């Protein structure tokens, strides 16, 4: 057990009845946060609140810090961990989305071996990951955002802290006023978070509302999200489309702003 913020409610409702429960809290070093030139390495037991309040993460990977503030409520984030959230693999959750967008590496460990799984291979289905029963997550390694890279995280929840009906994360880079790089991923629209290759349609283009609309429409057109009591699949797709437009605009704004600043 990591922070227990998803598991214990299930146990309280007797929807989960593990025979044994091991608290990873006392495993030394599992909650460290380490920075390098290119990446941020976060111990799986690092608490979400620790990530959200870390100035180093806010500088190196601000989209992660921002996404973390959208997880449930601060009392939950006080206990909830990055490893727990990623291992739980809720398709609507924030941290799996960011891990996928940035193609983080999930370093997992069994008693006698260790392996590193790219996020794109880690999330298999709803609540299902590439972890086998003998493995726990040791660290999550996320690339730093490059300087000048604009980012945005947008999600739509019915109330603050609720599971999002849909979430969108994007990064963009502009060179000479045209997009030279872009990444786009969504949560809540499939059994796992998904990366949208449509972001490539931005490359070489100049920013415009019409472009955001076109990319958002194309990115969401083929999605077939599940329906539940909070939203139909159509609702989710509509909302994801809207969030994508907002996210592209916001990421572009940040990219332009940071370019201005470094140029100035």
């Amino acid at each position: 057990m990591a922070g227990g913020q998803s598991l214990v409610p299930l146990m309280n409702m007797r929807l989960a009845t593990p025979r044994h429960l091991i608290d990873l809290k006392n495993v030394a070093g599992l909650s460290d946060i380490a920075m390098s030139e290119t990446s941020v390495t976060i111990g799986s037991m690092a608490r979400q609140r620790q990530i959200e309040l870390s100035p180093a993460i806010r500088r190196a990977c601000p989209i992660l810090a921002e996404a973390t503030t959208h997880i449930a409520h601060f009392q939950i984030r006080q206990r909830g961990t990055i490893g727990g959230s990623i291992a739980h693999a809720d398709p609507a959750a924030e941290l799996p989305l960011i891990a996928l967008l940035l193609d983080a590496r999930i370093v997992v460990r069994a008693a006698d071996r260790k392996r590193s799984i790219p996020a794109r291979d880690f999330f298999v289905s709803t609540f299902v990951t590439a972890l086998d029963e003998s493995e726990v997550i040791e660290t999550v390694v996320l690339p730093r955002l490059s300087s000048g890279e604009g980012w945005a995280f947008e999600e739509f929840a019915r109330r603050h802290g609720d599971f999002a009906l849909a979430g969108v994360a994007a990064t963009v880079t502009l060179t000479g006023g045209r997009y030279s790089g872009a990444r786009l991923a969504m949560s809540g629209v499939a059994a796992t978070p998904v990366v949208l290759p449509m972001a490539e349609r931005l490359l070489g283009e100049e920013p415009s509302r019409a472009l955001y609309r076109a990319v958002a429409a194309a990115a969401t057109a083929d999605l077939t999200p599940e329906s539940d009591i909070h939203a139909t699949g159509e609702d989710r797709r509509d909302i994801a489309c809207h969030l994508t437009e907002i996210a592209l605009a916001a990421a572009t704004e940040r990219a332009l702003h940071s370019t201005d600043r470094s140029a100035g």
Partner: protein
Amino acid sequence: MRRSEDYRLLLGAGTFTDDLQIPRTLHAAFVRSPYAHARITAIDVERALALPGVVAVFTGEDLAKLTEPGVTAQAGAEPMVMETLPTRKVRFNGDPVACVVAVDRYVAEDAIELVEVDYEPLAPVLSMESAAAPDAPLVDEDLSSNLHTRQTRTFGDVVSAFAEADEIVEVRFSTQRMTHVPIETRGVLAVWDAGRMELTFYSGQQTAHLLRTNLARRLRLDENQVRVISPDVGGAFGQKIPLFREELTVAALAIKLRRPIKWIEDRLENLTVANHARDDSAWIRAAVTKDGRILGIKAELWADYGAYAFFTPKYPIDSVGWLLPGPYKLQNYEYSINVVITNKCPAGTLRAPMALVTWATEGMVERIARQLKIDPVEVRRRNMITSRDQPYVSATGYSYEALTPWEGYEQMLRDFDLTGFRAEQRAARANDRYLGVGIASVLEPTTYGSAWYKKSGRGSGHEAATVKVEPSGAVNVSVGIVPTGQGYETTIAQVVAEALGTRVGNVNVLLGDTSIAPYGMGTRGSRGAAAGNAVAYLAATEARAKVLRIAAHLVGEPIDNLEIRDDQIYVLGEPEPRLPLSQASWTAYMDPSALPAGELPGLEIHRTYDPPAMTFSNATHLCVAEVERRTGRVEILDYRVIEDAGTLINPAIVDGQIRGGVSLGIGQALLEEVVYDELGNNQTATFLDYLIPTIDTVPNIQISHVQTPNPHTVLGLKGMAEGPVQGGLAAVMIAVQDALDGKGITIDRSPASPSRIRALFRAVEGDLDE
């Protein structure tokens, strides 16, 4: 005046039911049906009994031997009989079929999973339409039909009204199934004193005495063998009124096992099996003239009441019926009510059981205006009751007096720049932004006297109080109303202090214990002020009269020359007091021979009071909302209330009732919904699925008060508490409809959830958006 309850609650020293700990207490948990509708063919409890720590497992057959069934009688309809636990079949997902008693709750829950129940599933009845179908399977096999209640009432000349109409305006409104969600769930600690043969039943309850009467009967005990103690109650909202089957079971088993037994419901149970409400719909036709006068209305009202009747099935929907004319001049009216029994959790009285009514009436008036292309303000001007029209007897026979609906509406239009808003609304629309305003005039029935109960079936609306001025002059008060957060301990102390001439701090208010409180009708509707506080005031007035008689005798002055202030007795015009109040009280108890001739010893007053058949408050609510087309989100930008609840005892407490009530109305308008799947499984069993308003979803509410005293009540009190819920639902839904005006969209079901709004937009957008 700040609340005296706060101190213990803020220190964590309150005493809620689950806080009580008594040695040797056992803990109960219930085996519940996984099916919406099934026959029970066998129950095997052996494996559960074998689990260490399990003391007993009881089924419906066992309980039938220990208790009497419940019977809900309703004039003109078949009585509904309810076993303590079902023996033949289960009728909804979560219906309790057995009770496990164990050393702690953990073991009891372990044992639940070991009780083996064989079911023969039956087709579930899950909608009004299918329930009323002639070939529908019977939910309650003792009834002749699932359509339990069907009655029509006609007032005035509806036929002529419709014949003379220039137009007929037709509207439909439906509200979703909801549940109460007190943050403290239901629960009970039942303690049997085997030596005295007395049961003490600790449980957060709104109507402690009525519950005791019922509990004694169901347990086959004399009423003086049962004591109900409602300790601090963590909210109730109409849920903690009936004697629920779990509570009765726990009481019966505490007697049987001669051990204290505690049952504290978990949240999953509270959301799915405690009690629901609001599964209502209205189809209304209004006969109107071209210039917008309403000649008459016809309404067909439906309610899905769920599987069992803890209240008379017609009660909530009938209150929509008799209130529907609202604050409008309207004498030709006909309504029918239709109540179906289905395989869902039983429904009941959630704060403002008539919640639908204000949305229905005001929504109808808005539609009349739009259909006739007349300003809604004009339609109201032509039809709304003003203070000059009163006293006014409504179509359904209710007397309106000292109400200010039109005046409140006019004041709202003075305070809010409607013309400016319309301009802003048009400008926003050009940018694909959808702003709307909803103004709703609330007519809230507050205090139901016994005359009302007599007319509506049976029961009483009176209330009772005791005021005891103890020998030292300290005052103990009790009333039959039971607080669940309303601050009664504070307001009762205020009115008693005022009547008696003592300090508020000198008045101790003890409520909720049937061995201390006089027999009263408890807390329901909005009767706290005009029944509960009123009777305390009257009792204190009698105590004051006795104090003055004694004091007059002691100081040798005429009674009319005396007054009591700050616990001192003064002769009028004298700066210094003649004697302390405590000297009069001391004399009453300790020196009766010094009392005036004929005066009996002691200073304990018992007083009852039967308020008028019905009192009303009124209010005007205004909501400005924005609907986001792309996501379906509704955001409230402005919310205002002008409230006329007559004389106010404690304005801060009234404001708290307004804010809390509007919050519940907003929850109904935007968030909350109990959802069943096609098999009748409850899909909203957690707080992640049943969404109640949070601190970030409820706006600040601007409140202003008008105080028009009711001429027929004590102190001019009217009471209030449910109207804010009616207004909250109505103002938000009308604002949403206003925001969508001109798009060809009609929102006729609450909640205005993102999904519902998106679906409505999609229907008119086609592929334009792509």
